[in-house]
């Protein structure tokens, strides 16, 4: 276990370095200029001065300068006052990328974890109901709902929820953030596709497990049905769900562009799209580095949980 963690942590900087380099090259190749207002071009001498001030006149300098500041190497060498400085945003001029992430990440994480919990609740219940009696009307109904949940895009679900509960019924506020009532609809919208996937995983897991020999033995011994389902079968059927939860959680907590946009959630999800559209290099690099770090950590966490839940599993 310790070896696994240590090995993953050693791999991490290498993966992040590769991610940084690839993202930087792609982002630099986006045409256009992040400092340019779309409506007008200032005279060339002024644009040149602006590019120089932000070190955007030379990719190589920018690459190393940013890498040094972001990783804290410049700080260790005493060349920069702060470690892990992701630089000023090029479009949101009054905010540093660190401030933007500090403001948005807690929001996205709260919303994402809430959504994952909700998804587990809905998904497990639906999956178990379906898995116990495959082919029954309850199974078909949950399968149908799951199919809709996976295939309907969240901007449709989100807008529909907003129109019904926000505008027509007036039970939740539209836009804004800070109260529990603000989080319900976005969390639900974010949760539905995950819930649908979890329901399907659980259902198939349950069907397999309920056919297994140990279940037949348990039933022959007269173990109550409820006990068999919840205590024995579900435990094993949950393993594929658990491995899915790693990337799913990483995805949910880094925010969703669509959900954040529709519900005006101040998370970091919109930056993945908007920063690229405006070629905000520092912000692109910042969100990508944070996302990759979270992805790696959540995968590691799931692997550890995996081992802990089922000690038979050997992880390479």
């Amino acid at each position, binding site marked *: 276990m310790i070896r696994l963690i240590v090995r993953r942590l050693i791999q991490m900087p290498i993966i992040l370095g590769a991610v940084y380099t690839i993202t930087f090259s792609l982002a630099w190749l*986006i*045409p*256009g200029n992040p*400092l340019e*207002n779309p*409506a*007008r*071009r*200032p*005279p*060339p*001498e*002024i644009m*040149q*001065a*602006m590019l*120089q*001030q*932000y070190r955007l006149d030379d990719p190589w300098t920018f690459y190393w300068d940013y890498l040094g500041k972001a990783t804290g190497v410049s700080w260790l060498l005493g060349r920069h006052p702060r470690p892990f400085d992701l630089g*000023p945003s090029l*479009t*949101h*001029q*009054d*905010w*540093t990328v660190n401030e*933007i992430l500090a*403001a*948005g990440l*807690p929001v996205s994480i*709260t919303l994402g*974890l*809430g959504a*994952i*919990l909700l998804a*587990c609740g809905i998904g497990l219940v639906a999956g178990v109901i379906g898995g116990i009696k495959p082919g029954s009307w309850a199974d078909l109904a949950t399968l149908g709902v799951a199919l809709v949940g996976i295939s309907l895009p969240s901007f449709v679900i989100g*807008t529909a929820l*907003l*129109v019904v509960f926000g*505008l027509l019924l*007036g039970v939740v*506020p*539209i*836009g*804004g*953030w*800070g*109260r*529990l009532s603000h989080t319900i609809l976005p969390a639900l919208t974010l949760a539905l596709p995950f819930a649908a996937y979890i329901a399907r995983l659980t259902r198939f897991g349950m069907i397999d497990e309920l056919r297994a020999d140990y279940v037949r033995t348990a039933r022959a011994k007269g173990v109550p049905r409820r006990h068999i389902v919840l*205590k024995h079968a579900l*435990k094993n059927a*949950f393993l594929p769900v658990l491995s899915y939860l790693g990337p799913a959680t990483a995805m949910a907590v880094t925010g969703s562009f669509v959900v954040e*946009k*529709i519900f*005006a959630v*101040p998370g970091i999800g*919109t930056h993945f799209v908007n920063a690229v559209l405006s*070629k905000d290099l520092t912000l692109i690099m910042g969100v990508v580095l944070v996302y990759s770090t979270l992805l790696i950590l959540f995968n590691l966490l799931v692997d550890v949980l995996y081992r*802990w*839940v089922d000690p038979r599993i050997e992880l390479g």
Partner: protein
Amino acid sequence: MKLLVPFGLLLSALAAVVYLDDTPPRADLVFVNSGEVFTLDPQRMSWIQDFRMAYALYEGLVRWNNADFSIEPAAAEWQTSADRLIYTFSIRPDARWSDGAPLTAHDYLYAWKRAILPDTAADYSNMFFVIAGARAFFRWRTEALEAFAAQSADLDPEDRAPAALALWKETQRQFDTIVGLKALDDSTLEVRLDRSRAYFLDLVAFGVFCPVYRPAVEGWRVDQATTEAIRLSGWAHVPPPAFADRRFVTLNSATGRLEQSHGWTKPRHLVTNGPYVLSHWRYKRGLHLRRNEHYHSPQRIRSDRIACISIEDINTAVMAFASGSVDWLTDVSVDYQADMLAERSAYENRYADRIRAALAAGSTLDEALAALPPPQKGERRNIHLFPAFGTDFYSFNCRPTLANGRPNPFADARVRRAFVASVNKKMLVETVTRLNEPVVTTLIPPGSIPGYRSPEGLPFDPESARAELESTGWVDRDGDGLVENDQGELFPIVDLLYSTNTPRYKNISLALRDMWQRQLGVRVELRGKESKFFKEDLKSGHFMIGRGRWYGDYGDPTTFLDLFKTGDGNNDRGYSNPYVDELLERAASEPDPQRRLRILQDCERFLFQEDVPMLVLCQLVQVYMYEPGRLSGLSRHPRLTQYLWQIEVRDR
């Protein structure tokens, strides 16, 4: 069950995230800005949503009267020398910063110096180049920085910081000697211009000329006694602390550049001199303003507290407005905008007589609407279309050859005139954009600049369009409906470039293609590109006809006509005519304002009757949502500068 442990932990962690955010109570005026506020540093602003905040937080020397855009005193009165080269501003003695310190001429000098300094990376630096020596100073500093960066690598690391400081001191000296800006005393600012500029005061009313408070901007760390001294007589009378004691600025010893962090624009640090102070600003959540207790004319302020909330998705913003949590939407560009405007027309048509009578009796349109019975199904009165200070157009590539080296048919003004006269603009705004924007034949929105009368451009006239094209030798010789030259070659396929970020330009381009094919017998090929690629193509001249739009920056025809100057950075058309250059130059050196405007009028007439480097379509519009009678104080002047302190919400 083991598995419940992590879930339980997660749940309790979530529960631990207590929603005790200090969400302020609903403000007196709640509005959704036209996008996230990028900066509250007036010198670095370039977006309309930022400037809207600038006029609430800061006060310039003068301001526009936003009903007619004449100039009135704000923080200062002014005098002009006889040759209109020297302006002397006397600052109101009762003007103060929000921390109680007096507002002085040094504040403006400091702010304007920041804007001219290349280290600030200000978009609008060139607006300050009307001040004598400003451009020369900008160039001097740019070159000095390049020279410093080249040398500093050879210096001993310990010598770099003193060298950067020496360069910085030399920069201050250079500024004082080269640039025509002087604080004669605490309350008098003298500005010397490079040449007489009829619109100089209009520039001074613009947001980038607002003052900033140096101790806040630089984050001075000073002792109690110094703070007291600053509050009593202003920062100019105390020695500034060393760079080590300034939180928000550093001198980079490797590049010699002044590096500014923008922590000072946050509520705890920001000091302002306008009607409001910033009480709250959270990223992507919103920005709250509170009345400035030190403002010299409190009776001007209509709302005590203003909230500008962030809703990125306009669809959601419209729903928030409909649910009553927002009083004013400044942007309504949703798919169903035209439908909502049609509902507004239906309402207006039903009560046309009563509205006309009320207007004749002297009430405003909003008052007239508010007095009518509430709208029924299929009608509405809370959406409003305001013509703006900008124009939608298509640029002709005027270069003699195209980017691919082929001869350019649009280098010939007669061809351009034919393409302009064959476009039915009225049909475009009625059936394609469906917004009924005011159709124009010239670039400067008519009636938007005091004292300037717009000339007439080319009218819609397909007959003369065909004749014009024929006169260049392009005639349909074989009766196939397409024009050929005398060698029988077809007119080159017209390369029509547009951006795909909104469906608007695709729709207009499709309609234009049909009109030109039908009226002129030419083939047109549409080329839609994502906006970044579109801009690259436009800049490099890789198009024959390309979509464009322009908003004026200041109240003078040159803010539009400079686009046609040979070599201008925004001259996407590659247009060059010595006659136009000469007219613009003559206007620039004409001391008499009336005569100057007439020269500019001649210039615009020539441009849009004879040379037509662009096909102008319509005035751009801004669509707002608010309940008439409930929200008041908005300006209807095309420049659409809305001062937040004038806006009031009634019947809450």
